């Protein structure tokens, strides 16, 4: 059994290493796009792979351009929805041009067959923004890489948990023991979140109401993070918009289900403080509430973006060495780069779990803080704590002397 586990671990390590070598951005980073300059490597390859875009990079099999949906206002002031299959077709057949330089009203647009063809050849249209030739874009609903990736994560989570829920409905896991690797693994994690995250942080029986959200957040983040470690995929959580929406959901739950006590303390300050202290404390409390949730979004985003940037920088080092010092230095740095990359990938696997845990734990903490109700009647709470103490003493006695009960 142990040898089997070890061989699986070795295979996984090898796969991780091969994955690093095969992942887009390493071996093919400098292929064909005229990116063999320092700026090209840093801007287009390293940052281009870590950030969002309107294309899905499947090098060496090519690049898939994703559909563009633009809600635009025409020059006459009418709202239209422009839908095109790709950025290329948007530029070719729509009233759009490529922004080459400048901002605001003074930007220069690239239009016309010849100049666009030139831009397509250098893949410039994938890395720069587009603008309407007449009128302006109100809202860009274009499908992006991270949208596709978060959708894949969503499908995986839904698929796994709908099948497991059907099993529990049949009674496997409730009346009989859970069967199979998947069900056992997921049950461990679900029970962990229920007992270690939801119950201790949320007062009383209220955790039941928020457990579904916490589980959804945990598994979505976990799957999205782990997708970031697979070649040809990326982490949807390395996008501030995705993590921002999740933090906004936690914030909204905290506001919607917030108890009267929480709002009272938030808007009028601590109950037994003098008035001038309250005047100082109320803005601090409100800013603190917003900042907590902002930090929740930025923590997850920065961790995931940082991880992928480190990996691409380590791999990009090979190509930077090639440009700066020549081929021999590049070959020499390959060994070091790949070794470090495997190490960082393993760290990222740990970070994927830790960040999912941290997001869920902090969400539970924030929700728990806002739904918490204080006992107003001092006397009542005193007797309650006394009763609590007595029951605890009973429990201790029972442990010490089981026969006495």
């Amino acid at each position, binding site marked *: 059994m142990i040898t089997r586990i070890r061989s699986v671990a070795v295979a996984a390590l090898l796969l991780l290493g091969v994955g690093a070598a095969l992942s887009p951005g390493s071996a093919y980073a400098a292929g064909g796009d005229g990116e063999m300059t320092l700026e090209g490597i840093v801007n287009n390859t390293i940052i281009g792979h870590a950030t969002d875009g309107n294309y899905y990079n499947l090098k060496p099999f090519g690049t898939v351009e994703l559909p563009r949906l633009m809600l635009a206002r025409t020059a006459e002031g009418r709202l239209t929805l422009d839908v095109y299959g790709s950025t290329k077709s948007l530029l070719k057949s729509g009233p759009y041009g490529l922004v080459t330089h400048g901002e605001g009203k003074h930007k220069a647009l690239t239009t016309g067959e010849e100049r666009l063809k030139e831009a397509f050849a250098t893949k410039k249209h994938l890395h720069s923004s587009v603008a309407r030739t007449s009128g302006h874009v109100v809202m860009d609903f274009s499908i992006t890489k991270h949208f596709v990736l978060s959708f894949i994560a969503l499908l995986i989570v839904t698929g796994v948990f709908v099948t497991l829920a059907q099993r529990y409905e049949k009674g496997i896991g409730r009346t009989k023991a859970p069967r199979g690797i998947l069900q056992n693994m997921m049950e461990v994690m679900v029970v962990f979140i229920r007992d270690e995250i939801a119950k201790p942080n949320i007062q009383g029986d209220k955790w039941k109401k928020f457990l579904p959200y916490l589980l959804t957040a945990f598994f979505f983040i976990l799957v999205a993070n782990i997708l970031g470690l697979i070649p040809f995929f990326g982490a949807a959580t390395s996008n501030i918009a995705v993590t921002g929406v999740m933090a906004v959901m936690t914030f909204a739950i905290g506001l919607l289900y917030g108890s009267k006590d929480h709002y009272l303390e938030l808007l009028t300050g601590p109950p037994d403080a003098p008035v001038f202290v309250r005047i100082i404390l109320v803005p601090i409390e409100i800013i603190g509430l917003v900042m907590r949730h902002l*930090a929740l979004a930025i923590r997850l985003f920065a*961790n995931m973006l940082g991880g992928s940037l480190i990996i691409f920088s380590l791999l990009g080092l090979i190509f930077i060495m090639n440009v700066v010092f020549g081929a021999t230095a590049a070959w020499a740095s390959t060994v070091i780069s790949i070794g470090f990359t495997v190490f960082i990938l393993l760290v990222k696997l740990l970070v994927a779990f830790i960040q999912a*845990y941290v997001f869920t734990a902090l969400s539970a903490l924030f929700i728990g803080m806002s739904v918490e109700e204080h006992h107003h009647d001092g006397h009542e709470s005193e007797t309650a704590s006394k009763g609590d103490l007595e029951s605890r003493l009973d429990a201790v006695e029972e442990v010490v002397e089981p026969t006495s009960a």
Partner: protein
Amino acid sequence: MEAAALAYLAAGLGAGIAAIGAGIGIGWLASSSMEGAARQPDAAGDIRGLMIVSAALIEGVALFALIICLLLVVLV
């Protein structure tokens, strides 16, 4: 010096200083939680959970700084 050069310099220095701060913070956190776990091995599980959450909070502050450094590099 050029504005861009100054921005890159600031980003590099800022990232380094943020790393120092986060390192000191997490170092203290780890040392005291290990001490706590050694004194009271029964509470090691609780201490570990609390340590991860507080490490994440400290790290969050450092990551704020890191994001600002990244913005300096990318936007200039």
